[in-house]
């Protein structure tokens, strides 16, 4: 509230010339027409910077940090276009005929399947695959000192030994490599993605079709996406054939002339998709049953030579599948939407306070682990 030339501070219940309490400053900013002299003294502008804006790595973020993707999204848009386009044609041209002549359940099931496919695709593309944050300077120095202590004295001119830690997991020696970019020893099964420039936990591969890395946090969504997409492709393909057959039976076997262009298009898309997606689903089913990642498979880490076996496998297909697909949902350790408070002040810096939310004692930010 303002009186002519004076300010009423609602907090201290006093009328003053100037007041620098938060309440009054907030009200000063709120009221656009503020003729009071205090305005020239202190004007604190609060700019909210969220942590995702300062994250290193080559990711793009949308929706104020809720969505996290790789930089190149062209192929992802193609995936969206193919799925939505083909399904739209199916719903527009095939479904009315099939619903009437066969059963209305056919388009209903197709819709459910389509919704599931889109949900899984978006979930895979938009979520954090399990990115490991880079080491802060103190941690990096601590690790460097440990490495130097372990390596002992390296003679001048000699190359220092590679930075590797050996760990025994389930009677198997696993080598942990040092990541020069992130300045950490990578946990087992983690790998550095050069496209996204991040270390990802349980790194599987970088998939351009979903526009993101596939790692610990989104592997199950990726698998369910390929599985449901296979089913959807087979479904549309099958009912396209059924549709053509029914039409030709109805109108006297003139198959070629009666097949509309859209059906041909759908069949073509489904045919090519089938081979790739069904094959991919089969490959990942094989990997899941052995509890391996694509990365390990390509490198031949557990190929069996030198009696090297996969130490993470439960040696039981059911248990492996359960762990990968129905295991606990890991939270994101990135805290993309955490707030980094920065106050920038003009003329009077006496009231300024800059504090980042990396202060270990502050509990002000609510960590968002969902995506």
């Amino acid at each position, binding site marked *: 509230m303002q009186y002519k030339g004076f300010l009423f501070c609602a907090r201290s219940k006093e009328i003053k010339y100037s007041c620098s309490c938060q309440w009054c400053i907030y009200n000063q900013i709120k009221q656009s027409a503020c003729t009071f002299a205090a305005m020239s003294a202190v004007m604190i502008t609060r700019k909210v910077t969220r942590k995702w804006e300062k994250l290193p790595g080559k990711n793009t973020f949308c929706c104020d940090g809720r969505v996290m993707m790789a930089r190149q999204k062209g192929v992802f848009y193609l995936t969206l276009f193919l799925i939505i386009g083909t399904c739209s044609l199916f719903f527009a041209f095939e479904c009315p005929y099939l619903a009437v002549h066969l059963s209305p359940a056919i388009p209903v099931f197709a819709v459910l399947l389509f919704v599931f496919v889109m949900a899984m695709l978006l979930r895979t593309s938009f979520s954090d695959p399990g990115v490991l944050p880079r080491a802060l300077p103190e941690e990096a120095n601590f690790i460097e000192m440990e490495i130097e202590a372990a390596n002992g004295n390296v003679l001048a001119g000699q190359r220092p030994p590679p930075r590797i830690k050996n760990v025994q997991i389930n009677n198997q020696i696993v080598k942990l490599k040092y990541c020069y970019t992130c300045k950490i020893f990578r946990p087992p099964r983690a790998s550095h993605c050069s496209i996204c420039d991040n270390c990802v936990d349980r790194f599987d591969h970088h998939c351009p079709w979903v526009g993101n890395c596939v790692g610990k946090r989104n592997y199950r969504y990726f698998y369910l996406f390929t599985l449901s997409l296979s089913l959807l492709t087979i479904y549309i393909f099958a009912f396209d054939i059924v549709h053509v057959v029914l039409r030709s039976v109805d109108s006297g076997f003139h198959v070629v002339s009666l097949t509309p262009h859209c059906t041909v298009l759908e069949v073509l898309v489904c045919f090519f998709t089938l081979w790739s997606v069904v094959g991919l689903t089969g490959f990942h089913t094989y990997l899941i049953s052995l509890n391996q990642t694509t990365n390990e498979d390509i490198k031949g880490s557990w190929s069996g030579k030198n009696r090297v076996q996969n130490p993470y496998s439960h040696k039981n297909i059911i248990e492996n599948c359960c762990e990968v697909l129905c295991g*606990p949902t890991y939270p994101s350790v990135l805290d993309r939407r955490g707030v980094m408070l920065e106050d920038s002040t003009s003329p009077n810096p006496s009231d300024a306070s800059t504090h980042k939310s990396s202060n270990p004692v502050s509990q002000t930010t609510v960590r968002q682990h969902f995506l």
Partner: protein
Amino acid sequence: MAETHSLQDLRQAAVASKVFVQRDYTSGTICKFQTKFPAELESRIDKQQFEETIQTLNNLYADAEKLGGRSYLEGCLACLTAYTIFLCMETHYEKVLKKIAKYIQEQNEKIYAPLGLLLTDPIERGLRVVEITIFEDRSIGSR
């Protein structure tokens, strides 16, 4: 209260050094920290106390990542709803993380802050390390 007073003091105290307790991967990829007592803390805290804190943390993380009926049920239910159920429901892991945050705060207030130490929640460091900040020994109490 004496504990909160010393916690306030620590905010202005100078940081002498930091110790990082690394992950223990001998049981696989589950979240577990090494219980080995760092040499830098020898003069500050009792070894038994430190090991107890780390062991409790390990037990909490093990509970979060446990593969059992509960996690399978949660996974299947979530899959059936196309994972939209997580919009309204908190996962078991998140519930345990909150418990861990509370435990660390409690440990800091009761045990570590009076000794000039501060534990950082591992989630702030990507579940890679338990960072222990050692503040300058200003001999607040009698030593």
